[in-house]
């Protein structure tokens, strides 16, 4: 275990730090193993059990195979854990680095508070899930769907392929860079970033892009149209063209905002779903839509 000291450098660090060969290998290993994070998610611990599963080879390397220290470390890493899987490599890299530091401290006869590792995990999983979910579900998925939908609706193969590529190229890059920067930056730097609000600034930017896209998709993919045409004493009355003159896309916008207003007050999406089925039946039977 002579290489422990060369790999560990969690407390200090920065963006410009270069990784050595051993660390680069670790980055790729974390990259691949964290792909499995979602397997075995339970109600009580979410990703907790798999968190320890991911760490098995690293803990074996640090503390030695089948040692008491190894099993203690495994037990320490089975607490509740839940974050966006895509950004989790960052936390794993950081935890591996901190475990190495812990080992180095204990070898040198210095005390090490095990709580620091656990508290970093707990402190990071919330903000990382916040930014991760808004990037992955709010931006990447929406942009990928938006790019692909037009092609798919026309029946072109480009649709599903573009969806897979536009979503997954950033997904893979984020995972790789998270694993790298977890090692590079170290715990101190992250604490500073959380404190200063840099992460919040990025989350806000991603919300802006996400909301813009949702607005655009409301306009282009909620196609709630009326087909009512009445003959009123010689002049034809076309309900849809009147609505279009007031504001193009008025009905889809009203429907979406109505659903949103209800969901904000009462979180019951199933009710909205049933309600939509009911009004679509009513409007079709009355001859207003369909």
């Amino acid at each position, binding site marked *: 275990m002579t290489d422990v000291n060369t790999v560990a450098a969690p407390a200090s660090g920065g963006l410009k730090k270069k990784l050595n060969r051993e660390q680069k290998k670790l980055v790729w290993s974390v990259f691949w193993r964290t792909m499995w994070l979602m397997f075995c998610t339970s109600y009580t611990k979410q990703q907790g059990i798999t968190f320890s599963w991911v760490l098995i080879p690293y803990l074996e390397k640090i503390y030695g195979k089948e040692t008491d220290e190894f099993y203690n470390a495994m037990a320490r890493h089975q607490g509740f854990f839940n974050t966006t899987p895509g950004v989790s490599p960052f936390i794993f890299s950081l935890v591996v680095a901190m475990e190495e530091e812990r080992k180095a401290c204990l070898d040198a006869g210095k005390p090490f508070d095990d709580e620091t590792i656990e508290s970093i995990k707990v402190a990071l999983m919330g903000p990382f899930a916040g930014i991760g979910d808004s990037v992955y579900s709010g931006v990447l998925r929406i942009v990928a769907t938006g790019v692909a939908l037009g092609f798919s609706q026309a029946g072109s193969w480009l649709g599903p392929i573009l969806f897979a590529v536009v979503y997954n190229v950033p997904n893979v890059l984020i995972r790789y860079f998270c694993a790298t920067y977890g090692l590079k930056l170290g715990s101190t730097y992250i604490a500073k970033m959380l404190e200063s609000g840099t992460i919040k*600034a990025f989350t806000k930017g991603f919300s802006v892009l996400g909301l813009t896209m949702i*607005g655009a998709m409301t306009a282009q993919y909620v196609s709630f149209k009326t087909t009512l045409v009445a003959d009123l004493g010689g002049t034809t009355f076309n309900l849809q063209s009147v609505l279009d003159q007031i504001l193009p896309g008025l009905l889809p916008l009203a429907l979406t905002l109505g659903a949103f207003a209800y969901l904000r007050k009462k979180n019951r999406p199933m009710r909205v779903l049933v309600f939509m089925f009911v009004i*679509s039946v009513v409007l079709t039977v009355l001859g207003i839509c369909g």
Partner: protein
Amino acid sequence: MLMNALIVGFVLAFAKFIDWWGNTMLSRPIFIVALLGALLGHPTEGIILAAQLELVFLGNVSLGGVMPTDFTMGAIFGGAFAMLLGEDLATAVMLAVPLAALGTLLYSAMKVVVTALVPKFEQLTRNKKLGSFKALWIAQFAMFHICYFLLGFLCVLLGTDVIQAFVEVIPDWVQASMTVASTMLPALGMALLMKSLWSKEVCPYYFLGFGLGAFFLYNATTAGTITEAAQDAAIQLTTTTTKILSLTQIAFLGAIIAALVIFSELRKIKEKESMKIAAKTMDESEDFFND
């Protein structure tokens, strides 16, 4: 039918696997139903159905381990039965929505089993049995995917006749209503998405996106016919209203605005920090003069 049942079972298990492994989002209807269509021998139909089902389930995302409805299972069964029975989107939606709700129940039940295994994992760690720990970890997710494979396989093998009988007795007005509903359901998806991103500060951007998507229209000429009118021949043009900006183009503009917002936020943070430093030095100098 056996082959089709095997395909649906495989696609369902694969979708569940790829949903977790690497979180590739390939379990979304837009991709997985297209794949299903290609395997079932209805490639183009599959891609179009995939797009429509994606719109219906657009707002359903599993966040924080909570799955609102199992859109993957709903879309796969809805799409599979529609393609196998030669039915259209209305049928797919009618089957997919309730099956997605049922799928959530099944998923919750499976998660209860996994939760029951957690103490076992902890016990194996305490008893220092790493081999069994690894084996149990693999066994639990293998079982999970085998269950989904069997579900897809058996439902198509045994359920197709039942579904066909069911689809045949549905009256026309229900079919028409389902088509209308499928154009309205994306609104619920949008509303669910907005819930996770909406705040007072950023809400105007939703309306900006809506405006960019809705207001810029042009009349595209799609066909022209020469008509013999009373005096002379005239050309009659058929036009359709088309949106000028595609979603990709709006995403480009949106990314620019997002970058501007991030820069201004970062500048604010820097200003705040320099203010703090300035205030600190002021304090120190005051102390100096007070002494």
